[in-house]
């Protein structure tokens, strides 16, 4: 299993400071929740973590590998689901999963087995020869989830996995997240769904204006926010982020 270490991470987009000197340590096998208002920097953090974006300064290590210095080795450990996963509409579901499995290094003899099992468990078996472009949003999200975990990653990075899904698909995605966390996969879960964060995450970080404003389990966040001991996470979140202005930090 893999632990994640983020040290003094900063990311600038021209004059905009998207992430401001963030440091975090996520233990191996831990499920770590990431909460924050829109534009707080959550997706940027996750994109740097998986090697899509480069940090302006600071380091991210996944186990023994630095994502900037050893991107190929580090990326082998990761399964990433972006906020709005765009898939190859012109490939069939089966072809898409075969392609992703192959580029993520799944052995040929395991790939068919993994794909068939996952399609069955998500109820997508009869869609294997359908073009991805013809699938519904919920089905595409399920296909993206299968693609994320085909290579049995040791780190899962999930960016808003439940956005705009119907209740039935939400349940199956939540079950899937539960299954992965039981497997002991180190998971970072960015979400606006506070129930999901509370249910699955051992610790939660609240990020606002590119800074971590609080980290801890739900109890410690309640204490930090000076809320009642039975306060809902929603109230804790609002209390911890309310004092900041609307404009993002700028140099």
């Amino acid at each position, binding site marked *: 299993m893999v632990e994640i270490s983020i040290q003094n991470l900063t990311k600038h*987009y021209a004059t905009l400071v998207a992430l401001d000197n963030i440091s975090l340590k996520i233990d191996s096998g831990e499920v770590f929740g990431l909460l924050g208002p829109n534009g707080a920097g959550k997706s940027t953090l996750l*994109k740097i973590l*998986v*090697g*899509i*974006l*480069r940090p302006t300064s600071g380091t991210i290590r996944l186990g023994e590998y630095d994502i900037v210095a050893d*991107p*190929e*080795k580090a*990326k*082998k450990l*990761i399964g*990433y689901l*972006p906020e*709005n*996963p*765009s*898939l*190859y*509409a*012109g*490939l*069939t579901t*089966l*072809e898409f999963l*075969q*392609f*992703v*499995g*192959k*580029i*993520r*290094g799944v052995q*040929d003899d395991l*790939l068919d087995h993994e794909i068939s099992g996952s399609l069955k468990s998500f109820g997508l078996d009869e869609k*294997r*020869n*359908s*073009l991805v*472009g*013809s699938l519904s949003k919920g089905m595409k999200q399920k296909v993206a989830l299968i*693609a994320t975990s085909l290579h049995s990653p040791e780190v899962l990075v999930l960016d808003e996995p439940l956005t705009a899904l119907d209740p039935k698909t939400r349940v199956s995605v939540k079950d899937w997240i539960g299954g992965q966390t039981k497997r002991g996969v180190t998971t970072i879960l960015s979400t606006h769904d506070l129930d999901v964060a509370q249910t699955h995450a051992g610790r939660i970080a609240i990020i606002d204006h590119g800074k971590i404003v609080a980290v801890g389990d739900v109890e410690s966040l309640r204490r930090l926010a000076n809320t009642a001991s039975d306060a809902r996470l929603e109230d804790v979140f609002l209390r911890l982020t309310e004092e900041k202005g609307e404009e993002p930090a700028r140099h």
Partner: protein
Amino acid sequence: MRYWVKGRFTKGAILGLVIGEAFSVVFILFGSSTYLSFSNRVGLSTGLSEVALTILLALFLVGLIQSGFNGSGLPVSSSDVDYVFTSPVPPREVFAAKLLLNSLTTVLFGFPPIFVLYLRFSAYYHTSWSSAVLAGLATLVFLVIGLLLSADITLSLGHGLGERKKLWRNIFIILVIAVSLLPITLLIPGIPVEVAEVTRVLPNGLAAAVSVGLVSGTPVGLAYLADLLLFAWLGGVLVLGVRMSRGHFYDLLEVPSASGEKFDQPNQVSRLNPKGKSIWSIVRLKEKIMISRTREARAQFISAVFLSAFMIIYALSGSFQSSPTSFLFILFIIGSFGSGTASRWIEKERLWILKSSPLSMRRYVKEVYRARVAPLLLYLSPVTVAVGVPLILGGLSQPSFLLGVILALPGALEIASITMAGGMYFASKYGQSSADDILSSQQQELADIRRFLFQTIINLVMVSPLILLVFVSETLVTILGPGYLPILAVGMVSVSILFTSLSINFLLNKAGDAVSKREDV
């Protein structure tokens, strides 16, 4: 109408359009001169011009008929759907405003290049410039008829034609093509002239007859009747469209998707069996499957046919014999055209799949280049040989000319390869930007024109050493003597191949790095 006009004619858009117009005028002059030298060579002038124009306009008509049946007869954007179609403006007014704007745009922007085309022809036929203007106007009337017809077809989809649209589309297109191709039979000795007259039932045939008649000064029999028939078409399709637009037609229109992908069949047989294949062969296979399932395959086929036809016409016109460097220049044009195939490589929002994987982006781009571009190069190779062998045989007695030809033949393919690699760099640097999606269409057009010009300059710089080699070849043979021809040929061809390999590698590495560094995914 004001909303669309305001949106379309921003300052930036006007600047972009001026650059675009200038470019099209240069291209038209180049193309028309090539055409005239070709028609001179084969000994045909007015007759051939009318045939060529009928066919050219027929291609335009076929394209519009197709887009009409696809629901794109009235171009709409997603903002139209969200804001205009949900407004209380009656559909008929929306229809009228859209048509008026599209026709105006076509006339406004179509006129300069069309006028230049006819001006070039009027200079050739020694007729007055006013005949060129009138000929241009006749062609523009045809273009507007085409737009109206396309809109009418889209509107007719709601009247029970929808379910049978494929059958009707195919019948329509076959009829238009068949009638339009009839003038070619005039090239068969002894064929009755009346056969070609059949083409004048369609607006493309009428427009060609009137335009060529005017610009060549040839008295056109029944010219006024042809004019009247052309305007009858215009009135007919306009009245038909106005009648059909009375209903609510918004659900018939198609909003183009951001990715431009469209598939006829939702289910397909899976063709990407990864067993025993390397990662890179799977990457290439994926790319080929994607191309084959989108309209890109058709675009590639049309590119290949266009490129080879252009090369053959250029060879027949005798321009290559006058100078081997003209062969290289034409291949630069062809390579730039072909680089469009490479430039269509768009991953955009799907880059997360690749960038979060352990793949090397440099290698990935190289494999995409192989999958997208290699087929076109392979296709061009035999055409180059077919064009080149007669040149070599013809130049055996002139050693200085022969070295230029020997260098120019592989050089042609090398130039095409480099410009296509440039196309991949272009696609990586600019084509993958999801930030482009939030630009307005006018800004996007302007950005595309700027990038295209920038890319053309880069390509020209990259291939100029190859053109230079051909330039100096004649001087070298003259200085060293014909005895050195074999050594010079082997040496210089090796240098050009080495230069090409290094250039392609450099461009594709830069392309891979550009994808890796993208921040807007």
